[in-house]
């Protein structure tokens, strides 16, 4: 059991490209930390630095009160699950799991007992004598998990472990990983670019973009109070509506809005109505462009007034009763649900 602490960590690749530009993260003992961000933002790089597979250009990484900057991966007491699983193709499932224990000189009976226990937890007992190529994608994923848990390491590292699975299996495995992590109470760092996976798994969510951290917090904190316009648009599906205030008639409606240049409203915080906003809230006149019905809810896409140039606004409506295409509707939001962002994209505290 261990904390993981990153202090002003930077990474410059040999070519001179700075992939990580100073990151501070503290993951408490037994917590599940999810690194989320768009492709190329440096998530894998950061995770691999924690694993010891990439050198640390500057800053400090601490695992369990011990600075590990110059410590070999083998001696960091971590286990990693790779995106492509990285199973040893020439070894049976049993040997895949036993390999790390044998390398550490564990006595045979104990290895056997640990591997059987892990196989039981992951329900892969029947597969122990197979080679990886004889397994389905989901089974390989389980073996990769098994290989990590038999070691009983201080920290689990996951690099997009579910991205090669189909949608249904992905959800099932997501739930299982969470249950397993709770049960073992092992500190975990999990990389994904899927915001839903991030929201559902995380104790602490780290939203990254372009080698820097945009926001750290609990998933709901990040959802309800996004620190930047980037986080606002990245977390949540469909994303938050972001409306430029410059030259918009919304300025007048808002009255005192400080230095805000961008207004954010979540699709579910907008209500379609025939009345008006009242209580200092906001009212948007929309012309309906498109409607998506997904069963329990529907998404209405519209543009404010006649301004063709303005960004499309998404409104989430419960049920299937939606306005017709081309209809003019009024979308209102209460003042408390508005997010205001300054010129630099940072949130202005209301």
């Amino acid at each position: 059991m261990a904390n993981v602490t990153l202090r002003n960590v930077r990474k410059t690749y040999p070519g001179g490209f700075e992939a990580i530009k100073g990151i501070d993260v503290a993951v408490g003992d037994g917590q599940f930390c999810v690194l989320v961000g768009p492709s190329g933002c440096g998530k894998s790089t950061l995770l691999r630095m924690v694993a010891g597979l990439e050198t640390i250009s500057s800053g400090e990484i601490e695992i369990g009160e011990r600075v590990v900057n110059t410590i070999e991966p083998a001696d960091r007491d971590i286990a990693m699950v790779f995106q492509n699983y990285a199973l040893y193709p020439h070894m049976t499932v049993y040997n895949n799991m036993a390999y790390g224990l044998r390398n550490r000189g564990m006595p045979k009976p104990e290895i056997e007992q640990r591997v059987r226990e892990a196989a039981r937890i992951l329900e892969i007992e029947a597969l122990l004598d197979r080679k990886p190529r004889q397994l389905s994608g989901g089974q390989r994923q389980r073996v990769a998990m098994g290989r990590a848990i038999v070691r009983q390491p201080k920290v689990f590292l996951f690099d997009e472990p579910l991205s090669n699975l189909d949608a249904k299996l992905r959800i099932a495995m997501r739930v299982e990983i969470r249950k397993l992590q709770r049960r073992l109470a092992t500190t975990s760092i999990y990389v994904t670019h899927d915001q839903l996976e991030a929201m559902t798994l995380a104790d602490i969510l780290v939203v990254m973009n372009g080698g820097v951290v945009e926001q750290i917090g609990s998933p709901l904190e990040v959802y309800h109070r996004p620190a930047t316009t980037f986080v606002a648009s990245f977390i949540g599906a469909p994303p938050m509506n972001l409306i430029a205030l410059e030259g918009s008639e919304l300025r007048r409606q808002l009255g005192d809005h400080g230095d805000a240049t961008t207004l954010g409203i979540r699709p579910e915080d907008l209500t379609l109505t025939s009345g008006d906003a009242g209580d200092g809230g906001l009212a948007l006149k929309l012309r309906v462009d498109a409607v998506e019905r997904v069963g329990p809810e529907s998404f209405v896409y519209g543009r404010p007034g006649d301004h063709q140039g303005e960004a499309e606004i998404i409104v989430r409506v419960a049920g299937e009763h939606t306005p017709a295409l081309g209809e003019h509707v009024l979308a209102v939001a209460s003042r408390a649900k508005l997010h205001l962002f300054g010129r630099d994209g940072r949130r202005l505290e209301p």
Partner: protein
Amino acid sequence: MHKNVVFQHRWLPYLLIAPQLLIVLAFFYWPALQAVWQSFLLQDAFGLSTTFVGFENYVELIRQPEYFGAVIRTFVFSALIAGSSLSFALLLAVMADKPLSGSTVYRTLLIWPYAVAPAVAGVLWIFMLHPSLGMVARGLRALGLDWNPLLNGNHAMILVVLAAAWKQISYNFLFFLAGLQSIPKSVLEAAAIDGAGPMRRFWTVTFPLLTPTIFFLIVVNIVYAFFDTFGIIDAMTGGGPAKATETLVYKVYLDGLLGGNLGSSAAQSVLLMMMVIVLTAIQFRYVERKVTY
């Protein structure tokens, strides 16, 4: 999945393979058949008359201790070449696989020896190891080693093996490099996290994953040592001293062309042909199964 192409014209496929077939027939099957026929004949000393003698040439051969000696010698020779060139090529490939700057130059340089003609390679090594001319030989002598491949059979064998193995290193290197690069990096990283040091990683992960390549190369190298080393032997030692480097192929040449014993020479080539067929069959069976892991 079917990849069969359906030809509109019935004869077109046969027409397309005809040139290849003709070449194979004219330059392989015809001489091969001739050799088989020849191996059943016995010519008198002046080449004036030939008699059909059945398997007598073969029986004669097998009775000959010299032939048996040549078989053993060829096996030792092949094993030495395959062993040394494979292990050295693997070492070079493992070093070249590291992501270093300038590795392309290094790789290109390593591939060059393959383009050197066998006889040239032989001469090159002679210059280095010639007892009186070669600089390496002089160095060895300075170390108190009486290096003389012209008189000492073992030394001659070492010399030929060196030259022949050296020529094959490039080829092996290329295959090993390709094999190494097809091993996913993450598998080795997983092994590193699993507590395996570089040596252990090599022997428990890299090496087993290379076994298909190694097996393929062993067969290729043995075939090479059996048949393609004629030029090197001819240029370097001519089979000597005292038959110390006379391999099966070289013996065919000596007995047939120089010794005038065409029947025995033909019988020897037929036996050699059978060995290639066996080796190739092993290889094909293996390639079909493709992987051991």
